[in-house]
């Protein structure tokens, strides 16, 4: 008699573990994805920072390779930033901004034009400041369960002096 009651209970509870596991799985995966996404965002932000830093440093030390050609220099700096971005900035040239400043007049950036003489009136002349930035990069979580969430907007900026 006891065996029969136990047997009926077992039959009634059959499959409940699968349901419990499925319910728990949502929670566990949710937390797992959240942890991975936090790490992903930190990685993304660190990459953007490294990229602009590398771009600014590249700009500071290679201007002589682009004597009188600041426009070409901008393209090369953008390519350098992209190269160091682990693919985050591939095809996103429009987000990468390069500005040069006269250190005695830092209120407005210098005009970038190829009609100039290096170290006389070129924006990328020695002693000027260069600012490389990635503006409003939309960083999206790597893993999301229900819908495409709104992105986090990251901005990274670096300044250096032209050598």
């Amino acid at each position, binding site marked *: 008699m006891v065996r029969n009651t136990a047997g009926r209970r077992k039959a009634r509870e059959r499959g409940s573990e699968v349901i419990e596991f499925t319910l728990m799985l949502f929670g566990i995966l949710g937390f797992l994805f959240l942890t991975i996404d936090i790490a992903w965002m*930190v990685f993304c932000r660190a990459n953007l*920072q490294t990229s602009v830093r590398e771009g600014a440093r590249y700009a500071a030390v290679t201007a002589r390779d682009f004597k009188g050609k600041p426009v070409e220099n901008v393209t090369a700096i953008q390519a350098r930033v992209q190269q160091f971005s682990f693919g985050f900035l591939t095809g996103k040239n429009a987000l990468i901004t390069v500005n040069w400043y006269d250190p005695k007049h830092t209120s407005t950036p210098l005009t970038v034009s190829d009609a100039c003489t290096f170290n006389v009136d070129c924006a990328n002349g020695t002693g000027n400041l260069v600012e490389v930035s990635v503006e409003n990069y939309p960083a999206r979580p790597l893993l999301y369960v229900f819908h495409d969430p709104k992105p986090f907007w990251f901005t990274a900026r670096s300044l250096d002096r032209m050598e």
Partner: protein
Amino acid sequence: MSKTNRTESGVATIEFALTSLLWVPLLLGTLVYGAELIRAMQAVQVARDVSNLYAGGMTFSTSPNLPNDATNRALIARLGKELNLQTSGGSGLIILTTIKFISQRECDTLTSSGVTCTNLAKWVVAQRSTIGDTSLMTSSRFTTDPMPAADFDDGGNVVSATITNAGVTYTYPVYLTDNALKLKSTFNLLTIATDGSGYPLVDANKLPVGYGAGTSAYLVEASFRSTPFPPFRNNAGIYVVTLF
């Protein structure tokens, strides 16, 4: 309900609650430290860039006579915009200090002046500027603040004093004599090589060995406020020091 089922009733809830004690703080800690890590990286970047520009000769004073300094400050504020660094106020503070080591060579300018070179063999402040919220850190970790305002001009440079002795006029920067401009003894980021007479040690070509005493070094301290999140993070902020 059987006896076994009754005795196990609620066990799952208790187990869940017990495991929650571990993973809920773990998850919250991951969130808090993740956000803090991003801010720390930004703070290091800002401090390093500012130091580089400061060492390159840019000035950041609040002097109305130096209008470009205001735009320089605005440039730095934009650099730290994501950390809410502002030219005054905001959530960040950058303390820029030019420091010098006073060797016997600097003190020789006071020979026969009757003035004692009290800061011989000491690190001193030669210039000071701040950007941001000065209430965030009322004192630099390396100087005794507040330093006498009379020791600085409006550009933040240490002023000079003049004395006449035996018909000869001596002009010297007050950091040679003012004890208040001395760095704390805890400053140990640079070691100085001097010869037995207190002069900078030089090599066979008369070039200084290591840091040349009397020349400027640029010390930048950056401090940023963090949002408190007890018990993981209380009121501790981010603090970065760079030396160029």
